[in-house]
């Protein structure tokens, strides 16, 4: 098997894993606490960044976003204001990047 086909198999497996996480989340979130929804979205974003990193895509802005997500995603379990501030911080970061 050549390298390209191995890589395709690997990326398919990682994407399948992420899609399973997102799809089961979609089903479960109907009954789960509301604040789990934003958590799953930003956690999925972080997992997607992991996938592209594993295939050698080097992006400073994605790495920056992931660091922010990983640094604050568990504020989902804390006070609501803290969680909102964390999510607002992610949006601000994206807006800064979009505006560049």
């Amino acid at each position, binding site marked *: 098997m050549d390298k390209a086909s191995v890589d395709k198999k690997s990326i398919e497996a990682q994407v399948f894993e992420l899609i399973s996480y997102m799809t089961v989340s979609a089903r*479960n979130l109907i009954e789960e606490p509301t604040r789990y929804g934003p958590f799953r979205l930003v956690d999925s974003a972080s997992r997607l960044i992991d996938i592209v990193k594993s295939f050698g895509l080097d992006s400073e802005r994605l790495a920056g976003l992931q660091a922010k997500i990983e640094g604050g995603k568990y504020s989902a379990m804390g006070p609501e204001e803290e969680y909102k501030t964390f999510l607002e911080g992610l949006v601000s970061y994206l807006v800064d990047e979009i505006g560049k």
Partner: protein
Amino acid sequence: MDVMTAIKKRRSVRKFKDRPVDTAVLRRILEAAVWAPSGGNAQTWRFVVITDAEMRKKIKMVSPGLLGGPPAVIVIAQDMSLAREKGGKMGPESLTKMDSAMAAQNLMLAAFAEGLGTCVIASFHADAVRKLLGLPESIVPQLLISVGEPDQEPPSPPRAFEEIIWWEVCGG
């Protein structure tokens, strides 16, 4: 370790070291689980210990609440047919959930005393986990517990002791 220390110091751990948990330790924490109270002494719980990497990966794919890479996952399930037989309507509807929760707490405290981190997880697709583990329809997974050496020290969320504990009457 005294009980109060374990109760107060235990945290929900979502980041683990990539080191397997010794089988003897898993047996000890499972023993703590089965010494939990059980409604009507029904003991309809069943525990599935997952250490195989491939199975952990599969379970994780249908368990959004299972975060980090714990080297062991313990599924607390309940035999609903037996629960109905022993506990009537109340068995499957409520007693099994309470029993699973009490077993989970015993297990997590024992794990903490062994130097392990745990997290109790309700965010998973029960039927998907059941099918992946080959459990019959009558045995329903209710909780997952991730187990492993902690790779983080989560902060302690505050407890509003004075607001939530009342003496004798409401608000007292």
